[in-house]
């Protein structure tokens, strides 16, 4: 279990406990937190679960695979800390993780 803070683009914060093994995307979607669309359900096929990982957590959240990188390359408003949240697996190490969302996923 990890406590994750999801911050919408308008500043609204949602703090939820997410089970180890789920993805950061699933943690948002299953708790009905707006801002992550995840059209493909986690198949790394759509880039609609784009998030910004808080600087302090970037290393622990890991790095993007080549497939994820090439999807992110064409997403809107990509930053150095951009990730596809379906590709970040929740572990106990991510307890306290802070995620920010872009203005839009489409």
């Amino acid at each position, binding site marked *: 279990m990890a406590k994750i803070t999801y911050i919408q683009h308008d500043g609204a914060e949602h703090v939820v406990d997410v089970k180890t093994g*789920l993805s950061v995307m*699933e943690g948002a*979607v*299953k*708790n*009905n937190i*707006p801002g992550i*669309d995840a*059209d*493909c*359900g986690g*198949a*790394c*096929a*759509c*880039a609609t679960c784009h998030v910004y990982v808080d600087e302090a957590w970037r290393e622990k959240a890991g790095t993007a695979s080549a*497939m994820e990188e*090439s*999807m992110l*390359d*064409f*997403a809107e408003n990509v930053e150095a800390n951009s990730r596809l949240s379906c590709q970040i697996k929740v572990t106990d190490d991510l307890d306290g993780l802070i995620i920010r969302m872009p203005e839009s996923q*489409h």
Partner: protein
Amino acid sequence: MTDPNAHVVILGAGHAGGTAAALLRQYGHAGPITMIGEEPIAPYQRPPLSKAWLKGEADAESLALKPLEFYAEAGIDFRANLRGEALQRTAKTISLSDGSSLNYDVLILATGARPIVLNIPGADLSGVLFLRSAADAEALKAALRPGVRMAVVGGGYIGLEAAASGRALGAEVIVVEREERLLARVACEQLSSFFQDHHEQHGVRFVLGASVTGFAGEGGRLTGVTLTDGRTLSCDVALVGVGAVPNDEIARDAGLECARGVVVDLQARTSDPAIYAIGDVTHRPLPLYDRMFRLESVPNALEQAKQAACAITGRPAPPAETPWFWSDQYDVKLQIAGLAFDVDRILLRGDPASGKFAVFHLKGDRLQSVEAVNAPPEFMAGRQFIQNRKPISPEKLANLAVSMKEVGA
């Protein structure tokens, strides 16, 4: 905008219905929401049923769109094992399969589609399976193990994904397709031959240009499929994946305008202003292609769920999206954006033999569709070109030395 206290009834608890319920709450709808589902379980994702789930790489919990407690917590009255039987539009009531009826202020039809059943001898034999619901997938998974012989009837996406998963589980797989090539209705020839080669390399056999005329059986159990040429292919299980038809009878019977499905506008509204329809059951406008069409896809279900939820809660209509699709087979990720209507030129970028390429479908200098195999940049950039109706240079597009960013520059 609808009265914020209106009772919204959602008929159908698939990807579209479940998403609409959740979005209505996200967008602040305060009134009661009732969601009626025919299946015993809450809304779940169907795409993994032929892929990760079938191979044992995903569990029931991960398939669920939301945890079951979500519905109660969000004040969504989810009722399982129930069907809508008839609509009384003047009275705004819906008759349900348990004999009860329900009043609505706003109704969302999300009844989906069902697999086409082959009306041929032996179709009711044990071992003749379909793949649409979680229960269908359970039955298929239980039948697939090393050495089991599976005949797949229909070389479309469902059939090919099940073939790939079947091989991963050690089954022997033969695919029978009526057309002379795979994916004939939904993909270009380059893609058909690429997938055929790839499946053959993984040990799948194909019979093309042949129809199944019957299923042979013994003691009520399937033993083989009989083909037009008279041959019978022995098998232990047959998966029939020959397309789907919309569950639009309830709408037709109630006099709603229907074509290849329930006709809706870009706010998912039917010909009755109190009734919306979303997902596989709809015949919808495709503004990018200036026509009406019925789409069977998750992105379509999500887009229309959003349209309906926006309209009901008084939000502006969301911008129209470019239709897109995906399929995973073995190590191949196929991503398709757009639809290949009115195409006058087809361009190949990359070499299919490398396992990484894209096929672009153009109408003049506009991109209509891209089929990308293990090629996310081509898919992502292509989807943007289609959405923005951007004129593009075919020469640049076909030249791998020019990056997709440069093609769009």
